[in-house]
């Protein structure tokens, strides 16, 4: 479904991704791990179309279509979702107003009918239950005054509403205590399906105890240096990222 081929990305003239290749099939869960500065977040941002990243080589296609030619909203319409590492707070913007507009924008792009306020309310309630969220979320401003855990839960709630085909979750586990991690992970697991794929970008393997990936990739200095199954994450847990330095030094 998603094919990233030999992707090279620069930020302000500095090379960050140096030939990254990744294939994600329908329904698969891929974990991308790596130390700070390895390019994990850059990959998330480039996939979602954030400005400030210059693609200098390679390609990204989603179902054969060139993703790089699309605006962020067009990518969302195609079913791509980014769960932010640091979701932005927007005082004054009601969460429900925002999400109804977003869901309807996506539905419009697919030629589907828009939800009215009542339809949306019913769907929103159902998704909130999934994430053990309080109904007061709906009347609050987007992420305004939210705790770290609430913000991340809100990301998963948005994902549940938008029903993407490919969700990229950028350090969704950072800043979560164990209870919040459990709720967020269960939310992700409930949303796993045969035609929905995930890319979990994380520094720690802890998340992967809850959301068990099909594949684990280790990113270092802008390239994937190792790929494997779940056991690779466990190996990293015990050995840390130190070995990468040696391996790269030897290479």
């Amino acid at each position, binding site marked *: 479904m998603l094919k990233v081929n030999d992707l090279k990305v620069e930020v302000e003239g500095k090379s960050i991704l140096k030939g990254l290749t990744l294939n994600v099939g329908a329904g698969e869960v891929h974990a991308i791990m790596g130390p700070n500065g390895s390019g994990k977040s850059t990959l998330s941002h480039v996939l979602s179309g*954030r400005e400030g990243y210059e693609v200098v080589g390679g390609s990204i296609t989603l179902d054969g279509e060139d993703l790089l030619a699309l605006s*962020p909203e067009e990518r969302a319409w195609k079913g791509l979702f980014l769960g*932010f590492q640091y979701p932005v707070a927007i*005082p*004054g*913007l009601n969460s429900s107003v925002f*999400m109804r507009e977003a869901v309807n*924008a996506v539905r419009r792009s697919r030629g589907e009918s828009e939800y009215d306020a009542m339809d949306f309310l019913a769907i929103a309630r159902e998704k909130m239950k999934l994430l053990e969220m309080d109904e007061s979320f709906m009347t609050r*401003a987007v992420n305004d005054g939210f705790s770290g855990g609430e913000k991340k839960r809100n990301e998963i709630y948005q994902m549940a509403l938008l029903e993407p085909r490919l969700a990229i979750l950028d350090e969704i586990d950072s800043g979560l205590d164990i209870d919040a991690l459990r709720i967020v992970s269960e939310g992700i697991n409930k949303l796993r399906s045969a035609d929905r794929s995930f890319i979990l970008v994380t520094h720690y393997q802890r998340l992967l105890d809850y959301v068990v990936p099909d594949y684990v990739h280790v990113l270092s200095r802008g390239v994937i240096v190792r790929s494997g199954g779940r056991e690779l994450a466990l190996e990293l847990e015990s050995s840390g990222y130190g070995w990468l330095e040696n391996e790269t030094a030897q290479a």
Partner: protein
Amino acid sequence: MAEVQTVERFQQDYAARKQHLPGDAQVRERAMAQLLADGLPNRKTERWRYTRLNRVLKQEFAPAKPESSLNDPAVLALVDQVANSDSPVLVFDQGYYRPELSRLTGLGEVEFKPLGVALESGDVTLAEATGGRDRAFDQLNTALVADGAWLNLPAGKHGLITLLVLAGEGEAAAEQTQYWRLVISAQSQSESEIAIVYAGGDLSKAYHANNYIDIDLAPTAQLVVSQFQQQGEEAFHVAALRARLQRDSVLKTHVLALGAGISRDDLDIILDDKGAHAEIDVLQLTNNRQHADLHLNLEHAAPHCTSQVNHHGLFGGHGRGVFNGRVHVHPGADGTDSQMSSKNLLLSEAAEIDTKPELEIYADDVKCSHGATVGDLNRDELFYLRSRGLTEPQARALLLNAFAAASFSSLVGLWGEFVAEGVTEKMDQLSHE
């Protein structure tokens, strides 16, 4: 020379009317004498340096007379639109109370008198006008105001009280100076909310609206006062708000300035005893050649008082804004906690904002912060919304509305909706060029 002539004109207005003005004549005499001695704001008056009045002061307007000019059915419709049928709405036409258009239902224990009546009966006296050129419009109001409202808020929780301060309609109401004053006495353990709408029905005419709000908060009183200003674009609107907060009292006040050709708000708030708390939300939305100026003077005169000031400015076309927020922490006002922010979005090349938060601190143990930003919408916020499927224009519109809504999101019910609709309507008119 023009200035001398203008002062003389005001003096003549006063001389012609003073015998008919209600209440203590001495305080009016002193205010007029002060005006004659100090003069009107000019180019050198620091607190008026960004707002030039030459054009405005050239207009030879006479004081409004208590003659009704309103289209009554339209006003009654507005009354129903702004408040639920069980809550009181007081209607003023060119500064004068109009009982036949007002609704006193739901006032409950609250005591209300038209200001003219309250001044005559001695329930209330006009506060002494302060000296200085920058206070000229207060002096004028003190000298010439004939009507308005007096509200005495006893202990207990009261429902929303709405005041419609209408500029009148048609030629009869044009080219006038309209004086209006609201005096509020909030007693201990009272909890009240007051909404004020300033509106010019016939938007094309020129007039001056000179308004003054005088608030005294007894210990533990809690009060919300919101001013929603939608004067016509040819109008010159001034509104002073003076509030004194006694021990553990709370004042939350909103100034939402959308209308007028030139508007000037002066907020003077004194936190006069321990534990007092003030929250001030200001929204300035100007377009075309509109100019909105707000000067805040917040006096932390006692220890352990807290304050929060949030200014939002959104300017389109050739719209201009001026925000001057001064926080003055007096010696001995330890434990002061004061936060101020001024956020501004300029939607067009020609729009302009002069913003200046000022801190003067003469106490040691204080927590004060202030900041000002001017720019375009935040890129991260735009991207966040677009990543959820909104197009850039959709995302911009939502964010602009959210930016403005932060100033009044605490206003609820029909009143909150009325304000939100007015703001949305104005936002849609803002020119991005």
